[in-house]
């Protein structure tokens, strides 16, 4: 349903050209959940914005190919993209606190989106809005409909934002760190809602997050990003049980879990390089414990392994199972 190939975004700052993301390729099927995971500076949010066609607004130059339901999104005009955004692809931002307008009742904000993209009456839109709110397990939906954002808790606000996002029955939802601002118990509720939505409505979810735990519980596929590249992409169970890229492996190792033995937490030393000083070869080469001279000079090729995982690493044949 969504196929991204060799996507890159280029910015010119102070006469210098930087490419925060490049060579991004991944694909997802209808009704699937794809997790895009990466740390700060990995370019995961920028990737989402590029798919939404929002990077040109901030002066970015996009190259590559984004095919959504057989349509090449990069060849669409600004106006066409506007109708695709919202109607077919919807976006759920990170911070529910700032994505709702404080001066309108939350119900009206859901209705507004419905009226814009669906040809229905105001009355029908209100009915649909309350249905949506109930589907998202908002208690007392009719009362909440009349309330203003500041009267709602963080979890409820995020549900309203999701209601706005799914009201038009999009085929793809892109959610950028939708639970980062929430408490753990509320995060669990929202993540479960997302899973239910994708199953019930057969909608694709592109979930951008830094939290591998969230990815593990909800995604079917994963794309691991590092410094503007996808380094590993494949089925969630395969990647998590048998990570092929040293970065994926290291990332999994630095997450503590209940019952973990003291002293066994492994950090990745050093820092993520910034776009203006990406290394010439593999971008992980400056921190990789398995680095060979070739990594420093040549950009590794992406290889599809027998298990279905695509990995961008010279040492893809390393055996790195999780402990």
């Amino acid at each position, binding site marked *: 349903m969504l196929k991204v190939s060799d996507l890159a975004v280029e910015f010119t700052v102070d006469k210098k050209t930087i490419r925060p993301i490049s060579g991004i390729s991944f694909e997802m099927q209808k009704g699937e959940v794809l997790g895009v995971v990466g740390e700060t500076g990995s370019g995961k949010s920028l990737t989402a914005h590029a798919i939404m066609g929002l990077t040109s607004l901030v002066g970015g130059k996009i190259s590559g190919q984004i095919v959504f339901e057989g349509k090449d999104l990069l060849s669409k005009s600004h106006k066409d993209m506007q109708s695709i955004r919202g109607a077919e692809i919807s976006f759920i931002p990170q911070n529910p606190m700032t994505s709702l307008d404080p001066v309108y009742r939350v119900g009206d904000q859901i209705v507004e989106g419905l009226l814009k993209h669906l040809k229905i009456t105001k009355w029908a839109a209100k009915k649909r809005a309350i249905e949506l709110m109930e589907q998202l397990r908002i208690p007392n939906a009719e009362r909440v409909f009349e309330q203003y954002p500041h009267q709602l808790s963080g979890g409820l606000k995020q549900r309203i934002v999701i209601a706005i996002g799914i009201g038009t029955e999009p085929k793809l939802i892109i959610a950028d760190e939708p639970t980062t601002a929430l408490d753990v118990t509320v995060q669990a509720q929202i993540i479960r809602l997302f899973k239910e939505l994708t199953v019930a409505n057969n909608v694709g979810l592109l979930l951008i997050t830094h939290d591998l735990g969230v990815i593990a519980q909800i995604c079917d596929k994963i794309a691991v990003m590092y410094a503007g590249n996808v380094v590993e992409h494949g089925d969630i169970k395969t990647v998590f049980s048998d990570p092929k890229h040293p970065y994926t492996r290291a990332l999994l190792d630095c997450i503590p879990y209940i019952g973990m033995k003291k002293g066994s937490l492994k950090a990745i*030393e*050093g*820092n993520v390089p910034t776009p203006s*000083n990406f290394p010439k070869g593999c971008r992980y080469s*400056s921190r990789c414990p398995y680095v060979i001279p070739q990594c420093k000079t040549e950009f590794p090729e992406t290889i599809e392994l027998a298990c279905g995982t695509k990995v961008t690493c010279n040492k893809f044949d390393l055996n790195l199972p999780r402990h």
Partner: protein
Amino acid sequence: MSIDYQKTKKHKSPLKVLLKRLAQNKMGLAGVVVILILIFVAAFAHILEPYSYKLQDISNMSQPPSLTHLLGTDEFGRDLLSRIIRGARISFTVGVVSVAMSVLIGLVVGGLAGYFGGKVDLILTSFADLTWSMPSILIALLLVAIIGPGLESVVLAIGLSYWAQYARLIRGQILSLKTSVYIEATRSLGASDFVILVKHLIPNSISPVIVAATIGVGNAIVLEATLGFLGMGAQPPTPSWGAMMSSGTAYLFISPWVIVFPGIAMMITVLGFNLFGDALVDIMDVKNRESNL
């Protein structure tokens, strides 16, 4: 434990960053040039003036600009250029000293009000609002009436009527900064209120005050001229631009240059301060300074 030491080339202090940005701002530079010229003229007025500013020459009164008197003479035959040069010293001194005074009062009042809050804030803010609600020219007139006309009273009058705006600015800044993490961190080290206020809060809230003060100097120069025009400022023969224009009105049709040239001098000066002030708004990024300083 290893960590990358990316050899950080040169560490740019906030001041250096500002200077670099100023160098790229053409309007701001023009303002700086005007201000520097003004300072130079004010500082060396006694050397630069071609004639003594008080030298009267009745035989040469109300002469139009000529080679001997580049900007002409006034009704007492005094050289206009020399008087404008001397006037620059007066205007500049009054502008800077009075604004420095208002900023100082504003810093103390606004700083205390913002930092301590509560009753202190309520009392100080009400007092500031009271001064603010009176037209500054009125306060100035009142003070001049009490102390008597003269340069000192002009400085005092302007200083005492303009401080409220700086107090407000500082108070607002401190209110938002005092809850920031680095202030709390400094408090947790055991720093006293005085140290926090003077070493952290005020330096970090000073940018908008500097901007306002720069533009304020321009305003103060205009107010000085206004008071001078009304005869309440520097007393003759001290050549204040305002007083010169005032005396020129009587001879407007005979010798218009007496009123035009001081006016132009003032206009350029005020424009210089405003250009510099506007440039500061941009380069200090006053609205959104979190992101880079």
